[in-house]
C-alpha cells in the first residue's frame, strides 16, 4: 500500500529550486524525512497538503492527486508545523476542539476527540489553562494533538523535536512511534538529525538541495551507522594511536573519537585499549549518524 508518492516533483522559487526532480514512494508506518535546513522538507509538505503547486511533476497522497484533490487530502491528513502556531489566550482544550471542528467534526464529537487526544499526548490538568503560559514541551504536545484530533490517516510532522530538552525529545519520539504502531496512523516526520529518526522510523528518506539522496528501510541505515563514539578525559591521541596500531579505523571528531565497528571484536579491542592505557572513560555510545555522515558516504548504496 502506498501512502504517498511523488514523481519528478519540482518546485522552483524565483531565487532557488526547493525541490528538484524528486521521486519517492512512502508506505505505511513511520517515515523519516531528513535534510539540512533549506533542503526542501517544508516545501514538500506544503505540496503534499495541496497548498503549493509544483512547478513540474506530480504528487499523490493516499491515492489522491495533490493538484486536484487538495481539500479531500487535508480532510484526512494531519499537519504539525515547525513554527509556533498557538494563540496564547486560548486553553489547549478550546483550541483542540476548535481545530477538530475546522476539520469537519461535529461539536460533540470534536469535544470527545479533543479530550481523548490530549490525554494521549500527555496533557492532563494543564489543558484548561491558557496556552500562553505553556512550556515548549507542552506546546509541542498541543501542536501534535491538533494534528491528530480528527483521526487522520496520515500525519505530517515538521520538526516535532525542535526546541525540546533530551527528555522531552525522547518522549516525543516515543509518542511518534506509538502513533505509527499503536494508533495505526502513518507518519511522515522531518528532522535534520538522522540519529533521532533512526530510533522511531521504519523507513528514511534523505534529501539535500531538493534532490533525493537516499530512500531506504531503516535496516539498511543501521548497517551503515556502525560507529562507536568514545570520549575519554585525557589521552585521546594516545588511544587513537593504540587503536590504529590494532587495525581499527579511528576518526577524531572534536573531543571525541569515532571508531568504525568492523566486527563485534572491535568493542573488545576498544575496552582493552582503554584499560591498558589506564584512561578515564567518559562516554561510549553507538554512533548517532548525523546528516553529514550520509553526505560523506558514497550514494551508491
Amino acid at each position: 500500500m502506498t501512502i504517498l508518492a511523488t514523481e519528478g516533483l519540482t518546485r522552483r522559487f524565483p531565487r532557488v529550486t526547493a525541490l528538484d526532480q524528486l521521486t519517492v514512494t512512502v508506505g505505511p508506518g513511520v517515515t523519516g524525512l531528513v535534510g539540512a535546513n533549506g533542503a526542501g522538507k517544508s516545501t514538500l509538505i506544503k505540496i503534499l497538503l495541496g497548498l503549493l503547486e509544483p512547478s513540474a511533476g506530480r504528487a499523490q497522497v493516499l491515492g489522491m492527486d495533490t493538484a486536484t484533490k487538495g481539500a479531500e487530502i487535508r480532510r484526512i491528513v494531519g499537519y504539525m508545523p515547525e513554527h509556533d502556531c498557538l494563540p496564547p489566550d486560548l486553553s489547549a482544550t478550546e483550541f483542540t476542539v476548535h481545530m477538530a471542528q475546522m476539520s469537519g467534526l461535529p461539536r460533540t464529537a470534536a469535544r470527545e476527540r479533543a479530550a481523548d487526544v490530549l490525554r494521549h499526548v500527555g496533557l492532563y490538568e494543564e489543558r484548561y489553562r491558557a496556552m500562553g503560559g505553556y512550556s515548549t514541551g507542552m506546546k509541542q504536545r498541543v501542536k501534535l494533538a491538533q494534528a491528530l484530533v480528527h483521526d487522520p490517516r496520515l500525519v505530517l510532522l515538521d520538526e516535532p523535536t525542535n526546541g525540546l530538552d533530551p527528555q522531552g525529545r525522547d518522549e516525543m519520539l516515543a509518542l511518534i512511534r506509538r502513533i505509527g504502531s499503536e494508533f495505526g496512523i502513518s507518519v511522515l516526520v522531518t528532522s535534520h538529525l538522522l540519529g533521532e529518526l533512526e530510533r522511531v522510523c521504519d523507513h528514511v528518506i534523505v534529501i539535500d538541495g531538493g534532490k533525493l539522496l537516499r530512500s531506504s528501510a531503516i535496516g539498511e541505515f543501521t548497517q551503515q551507522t556502525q560507529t562507536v563514539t568514545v570520549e575519554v578525559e585525557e589521552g585521546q591521541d594516545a588511544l587513537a594511536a593504540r587503536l590504529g596500531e590494532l587495525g581499527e579505523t579511528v576518526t577524531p571528531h572534536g573531543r571525541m573519537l569515532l571508531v568504525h565497528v568492523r566486527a563485534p571484536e572491535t568493542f573488545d579491542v576498544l575496552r582493552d585499549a582503554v584499560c591498558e592505557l589506564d584512561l578515564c572513560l567518559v562516554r561510549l555510545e553507538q554512533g548517532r549518524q548525523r546528516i553529514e555522515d550520509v553526505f560523506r558516504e558514497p550514494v551508491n548504496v
Partner: protein
Amino acid sequence: MSEPTGVIHDIGYRHYDGARLGRGHATAALAVHSLRGIFGLGRTARSKIIPFVLVGVMLLPAVVSIAIMALIKQEGMRYTEYAVIMQAVLAIFLASQSPYAVAPDLRFRVLPLYLSRPVTLWDYVGAKLAAMTAAMFLLLAVPLTVLFVGEVVIDLPGDTHTVEYLTSMAGAAGYALLLACLGIAVASFTPRRGLGVASVIALYLLASAVSTVLFGVLESMGDDAAAAWAWLINPFFVVDAAVHVGIFGATPASNVIYPPGAGSLVAGVIMIALIGLSVTALIARYRKAASR
C-alpha cells in the same frame, strides 16, 4: 490494523468513524469562534471589558429615550439617527475589536493551521467578515430593538414607528457590512493589534474630520450644493444616505442635508465600491500571507 488484545490498563487509541462534515460546517465554526472572540467570550475576563463596556454605552441612549417616553411622555430618539449619533462608539468598537478577529492568527501563525484544513482562503476571509458583521449588527440592533420594545410597551399616543424601526434595522445591516469590511481589511494588514487599533481609529477620525471641515469651508463659501457632497466622505453618512434615505425614503440623520437627486445613488455606489475594495484587499493580503 490490529487492535491490542488483552490490555486492560489503558483503553488505547480509538479511531473516529463518525461524520466528517464539509467546508460549510468548518467555515461556520470559524465564524462562531471569531464572533465569540470579538466579544471576549471564552477568553480572559480582561478581554470582555472593552466590548461589554461599549455595548453598555450603546444601550444608554435607548434607555434614556425610554425614560423620556415614560416620564415626560415625549418622543425619544429617532431610530435612523441612532447609528449616526453613536458613530464614535461604533468606530471605537470597530477599531478595538476588528484587530482581535484577524491579528492573532497572523501574529501567532495560526493561519497555516487553518489552511491545512479543508477550508480555503475565501472561506477564511468570509468567516472573519461574517463574524465582524454579526458583531457590529448586534451592537447596533440590540439597542434599536430595546428602544422599539420600550416604545411598544409605553404606547405613547400616536402611531408606533414600526416602519422607522425596520428601516433602521436594514440600515444596521448596511452599517455592519460596510464597517466590518473596512475594519477587517485595515486590521489585517498588521499582525500587531495595537497598530491595527490605531489604524482603524485614525482612518475614522480622518474621514470624519475631512468631511466636517470640508463641509464647513464649502458652506461658508456659500456653495451649499458642494457642501452637501462633503458628508459622503464619512462612511456613517454614506450608509444613512444610501440605505435609510435612498432605499427607504427616511429623513436624513440630524441636521444633515444630502446632495439632492443622484446623492443617494452615489452613496450606494460608494458603499458597494468600499466593500468591494476591502474584500479585494483582504484576498490579496491573505494570498500573500498564505504563500509565506
